[in-house]
């Protein structure tokens, strides 16, 4: 990995990149988190990347899924019923 020289608060964009992908919503107040936050405040590329990653996750999280159909549920219990009958027959 190409390491950038340290410009902003002793962290390179590559350092920030690896952390961004691990824990996007970290609310921790550790030394490394404070450095990342400081970097993000000043680096518009890293901050745009973080924002777009968060939006990607938001979109997938809020993607509306259809409801399960009554037919699928009914079919499931019909299969289970058949399974039970099969078990009974094998016992006999």
């Amino acid at each position: 990995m190409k390491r950038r020289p340290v410009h902003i608060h002793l962290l390179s964009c590559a350092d920030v990149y690896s952390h961004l992908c691990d824990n996007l919503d970290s609310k921790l107040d550790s030394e490394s988190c404070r450095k990342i936050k400081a970097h993000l405040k000043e680096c518009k590329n890293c901050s745009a990347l973080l924002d777009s990653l968060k939006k990607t996750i938001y979109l997938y999280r809020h993607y509306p899924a259809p409801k399960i159909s009554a037919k699928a549920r009914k079919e499931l219990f019909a299969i289970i019923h058949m399974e039970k009958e099969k078990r009974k027959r094998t016992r006999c």
Partner: protein
Amino acid sequence: MKESHHTPTDAQLISRVKKGDERAFSALVQRYEHTVWGFAYKLCRDKEKAEESFQDTFVNVFRKIDQFDGRSKFSTWLYTIVANNCLMKRRRRKLEDLLESYDEAPDVEDEEVQKQLASWDDTPAEKLLRGELKEQLDRAIQQLPDDYKVVFVLRDIEQKTAEETAKITGLSVPAVKSRLRRSRMFLRQHLHEFMKQ
């Protein structure tokens, strides 16, 4: 085990299912159908396939309930069955190389990379409901190999911890983390053209 008159626990229901109680099985299905359905749909992105996966999962639960020893949460076991079901159906594709390239941080001094980092448009909820965006989201996630998709859905959509995701998928925690990182970058990249301002 003393059973309360109110809501039976998972362990109580499972113990009754093991003894052949059909009503306990129905109660277990009712309790977890939305979990299984939601996860199956998010993986399959297709109603018919998700229904098949939903049914296969509960049929497997019925067949293999004796194998469930209660050492992990019942929901973890369910997620494992759905994930295995999904993984068994399809084989991984040749995207591994491309995904591994996301391990490297982008070179932010490169002009092309800077274009890729341009801010995204705001995404109000209504926009998500628009067919076009849904299609983009489906198309992008469908391109991920299934083991990556499972990790992304578990971690970022179902909001499971890295440890629980590792337990469900049988991967190590570092493997979960690297798959998650690559998946996020891959999906972001595929939505970029649509989302940039």
